[in-house]
């Protein structure tokens, strides 16, 4: 089950931000362990874990009392949180490693904030399909739409993301 740790982390980071993702990741796996003995009939364990991660992310937002959509502002808390984490990691390293980690962290923060700007359906389709690797039919199950709509949202979302990122690269000095 822990083999799916990376996929779950990607979903958690996308849904609650890098800083809070660790807590939600742990809650997801504890909930999965709790349900595990009764989960024998589950055909796709990864999609099942992603669903739990989605639910735990929603719980997290409910607890925090804020909207689950970190969109609208390119300088969203997501990006800030990411850079802070990368900075901490970098500070613990040294020399060139610091520079590399900081740059990698900034790149990641830029992509996260671009993802956050996508319309919700597209954003979730990109996260579930392109980032977590679920099939379009499974994404449709999570989004409550059709497989065709999920496929379109994933494709449109990735295209919009590409435009966003190209635009930002041009802005940079």
């Amino acid at each position, binding site marked *: 089950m*822990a*083999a*799916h*740790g*990376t*996929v779950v*982390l*990607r979903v958690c*980071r996308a849904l609650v931000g890098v800083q809070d993702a*660790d807590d939600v*990741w*742990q809650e997801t*796996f*504890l909930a999965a*362990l*709790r349900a*595990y*003995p009764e989960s*024998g009939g589950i055909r796709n364990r*990864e999609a099942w874990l992603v669903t739990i991660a989605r639910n735990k992310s929603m719980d997290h937002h409910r607890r925090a009392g804020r909207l689950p959509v970190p969109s609208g502002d390119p300088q969203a808390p997501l990006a800030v949180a990411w850079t802070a*984490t*990368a900075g901490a*990691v970098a500070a613990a390293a040294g020399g060139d490693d610091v520079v590399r*980690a900081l740059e*990698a*962290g900034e*790149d*990641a923060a*830029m*992509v*996260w904030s671009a*993802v956050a700007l996508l319309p919700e359906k597209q954003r979730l389709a*990109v996260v579930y399909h*392109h*980032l*977590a*690797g*679920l099939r379009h039919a499974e994404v449709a199950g999570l989004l409550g739409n059709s497989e065709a709509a999920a496929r379109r949202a994933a494709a449109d979302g*990735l295209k919009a*993301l*590409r435009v966003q*990122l190209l635009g930002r690269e041009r802005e940079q000095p």
Partner: protein
Amino acid sequence: MIANRVLPSELLPLAVDEDGAVARLRAALPAAAAAAGLVDVAYRVVDSPVGQLLLAGTEVGLVRVAFSREGHDAVLAALATTVSPRILRAPSRLDAAARELDEYFGGRRHSFDLPLDFRLANGFRREVLAHLPEIGYGHTASYAAVAALTSSPRAVRAVGTACARNPLPLVVPCHRVIRSDGSQGAYLGGPDAKALLLALEAAPQP
């Protein structure tokens, strides 16, 4: 695995630190799961003079010791079926077993005082296992002699089976059971392992 599928290039920067993050989260999970009462079987793998040993324990005690030739993955899969699928690598839960085995291989320990969970051996097999610690360190007994200790003194072959299926080798000393003609007999850890253990126990004490 799907996770290893190549990400679209736009999303690649997001993967920058996730290996480290997942490793850290995985390392912390067993303790959190144990605190929540969600780990039914904890395991770890230790090195030993007879190869890598898988140690698995339940709330009751040590439930399985497995040699690498048994296939650790197969043993874990069997534990998932017979005990519980809630199995996690949680090394600290098996510190005592690892320490006592280390002392045993160093010649500093002659008997184990670990809590044991015998749920993987029932009926006559369990009865046989209960008698094996009566064969003292450095001594051996024949399959027939062990049978004579049980409620079925003529069940010599069944004693052989019980030893061959011992879920707790080393700790429950089936390696001290040999053939009536004095030859070593088979061992689930392999003949070399049995020879090594008998030689270790026969060596002059430090």
